[in-house]
């Protein structure tokens, strides 16, 4: 049986189901209990699981991140709620120097099974410190796994995989899509890491899109279809591990790719995926691989400016059309 629920409800269900299944799972973060976070994603959980397992903290991101690591090392399975992805900069030492390296530095003896839930996405008029998409930062660090659900279905399935994983996992939710509905099975399911989703099949150009950009690329694909260009949309769903094979197989068919992620374009997720395509599918390519991401400026507040900084269906379709027609994007 399938019903339509929101991304937000899907996250809530995933956590509730896993907390019922495993009493070691705890939630920790700012206003996660009665408030249910500012996005109300966690509403109702404290009523069911109590304040021992749904733990409201002071506003001290490095502190509760560090405590979650210690709790994970000693037998708990914490889900850390980081209210905005931008606050990753506050927890980087604990996440990257401690959580990511503990298993390796201990020669495999200690483990840190924790999930850091946070979010990404601009155009919410939230300014430069509440709008960033920082998945590239953590995908760079060995020892972390990184998941980017793009729908309610994947939000639930990937989060359940993350909670059951014995490693530190960072999962980014698209904060603009919390109220978007999608079909989600009634029963138990998980979405395994490292398995890309072919969201839409096509033959002429591959659009590799993450998180918030998947829906944007689907809209771009519809625009392209109107011009008789058939676009395939691939959502990797996890950056670490990355399902390279599905991407490369698509490129063998289409020979052209636009890679789209809402992080900044420079030194970002799209650069990594584009270079892997270039390294592993070079002789299948008919055009340069195009990268699209957030403009390399701090996210501005003014709607007139902010809207300019993120890829749009029109811009993606335009770039896809250019490489399809052979209007190569030559360097100067």
């Amino acid at each position, binding site marked *: 049986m399938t019903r339509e629920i929101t991304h937000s409800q899907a996250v809530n269900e995933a956590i509730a189901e896993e907390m019922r299944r495993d009493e070691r799972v705890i939630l920790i973060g700012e206003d996660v209990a009665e408030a249910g976070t500012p996005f109300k994603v966690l509403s109702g959980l404290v009523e069911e699981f109590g304040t021992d397992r749904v733990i409201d903290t002071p506003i*001290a991101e490095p502190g*509760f991140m*560090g*405590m979650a690591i*210690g709790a994970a090392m000693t037998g*708990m399975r914490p889900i850390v709620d980081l209210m905005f992805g931008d606050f990753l900069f506050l927890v980087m030492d604990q996440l990257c120097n*401690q959580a990511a390296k503990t298993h390796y*530095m201990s020669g495999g*003896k200690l483990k840190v099974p924790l999930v850091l839930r946070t979010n990404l996405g601009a155009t919410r008029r939230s300014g430069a410190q509440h709008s960033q998409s920082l998945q590239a930062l953590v995908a760079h660090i060995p020892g972390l796994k990184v998941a980017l659900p793009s729908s309610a279905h994947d939000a639930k399935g990937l989060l359940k995989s993350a909670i059951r994983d014995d490693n530190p996992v960072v999962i980014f939710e698209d904060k603009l899509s919390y109220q978007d509905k999608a079909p989600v099975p009634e029963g138990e399911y998980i979405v395994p890491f490292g398995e890309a989703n072919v969201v839409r099949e096509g033959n002429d150009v591959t659009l590799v899109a993450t998180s918030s950009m998947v829906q944007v690329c689907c809209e771009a694909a519809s625009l392209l279809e109107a011009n008789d260009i058939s676009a395939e949309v691939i959502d990797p769903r996890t950056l670490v591990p990355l399902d*390279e094979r599905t991407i490369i197989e698509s490129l063998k068919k289409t020979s052209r790719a636009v890679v789209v992620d809402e992080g900044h374009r420079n030194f970002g997720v799209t650069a990594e995926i584009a270079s892997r395509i270039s390294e592993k599918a070079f002789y299948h390519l008919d055009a340069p691989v195009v990268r699209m991401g957030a403009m390399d400026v701090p996210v501005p507040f003014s709607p007139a400016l902010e809207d300019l900084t993120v890829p749009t269906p029109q811009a993606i379709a335009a770039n896809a059309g250019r490489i399809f027609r052979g209007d190569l994007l030559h360097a100067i």
Partner: protein
Amino acid sequence: MNSGRKNNAEQYLRMYRQMVRIRVFEDQANQLYLSAKMPGLTHMYSGQEAVAVGICEALTNEDRITSTHRGHGHCVAKGAEFKAMFCELLGKEEGYCRGKGGSMHIADQNHGNLGANAIVGGSTGIATGAALTSKLLGKGNVTVCFFGDGATAQGLWYEVMNMAALWKLPIIYACENNGYSEYTATAEIAAGAITARAEAFGIEAHRIDGQDVLKVNELAENLVSRARKGEGPFFVELETYRFSGHHVGDINREYYRSKDEEANWRLNRDPIKNFGDWLESQSIADADELVAIGNEVKASAEAAVAYALDAKFPDSSEVDMHVYVGVDHALPYIDGSSK
């Protein structure tokens, strides 16, 4: 010295031996560095032995500690053995961390040591989280978070101390004030009293002589048993001294502390010598017995060093192992080619 003699010779001799084991371990590690047999460098615990031993003597195997870059003493005191420690210092496969951690990252979870940490103050969160686990599971375990005076300048500690106090976590923050934050006197980096920082959170704070193992142990026994009953957290500042420089390569250090000062501590406030004198004065052991303990420990350390020098390095195939739990080799996993 503590004047109240306890009727527990066996425990006293165990503490004495543990302090000697730390000193001897560090002397051997220093020799490995000076003879260029040890990769990298290391930070000597010598001079601070009474802190680690006095506190760890009050802990059970199930109690946990977190340690620091100057962590060999904590590791020994919590129950580690020489062979696997020297193997770790030399990057050998039989080390506690298969050679992947080294001196600054030794962890020994079988004895409750959650690991040394090379980020100053970096383990305060981990320790407090371990105490949260203890509280949630209700098993009465206590965590001791060791850190130096230098770490009191880091913000993380204040964040987690606040939560530990709010939630009455079973943790003891043990600040080893050895007078120097790397190459800078503590007076130059710490405003006000360090105990006042814990007291600001309503945490019971103590400041004691960290060179007197009996005093340290007496306080630790008291605080640990109270923490088990839910009366924590606690803070202890232990006044101590590192006999060596910041690390083994810090040889010429008169620009930040005088040779007279060092000589005075070594002569008058050596925790091992003073405890040995007390054991003799109380007729718990005579001089010959103490010398015999020293010789026996030295022989076992030398044997462990010889073993570690001959031990195997990890195989090259290990380089991408243990990056992820449940993944044999990280590299093919990360790019999806292991599927």
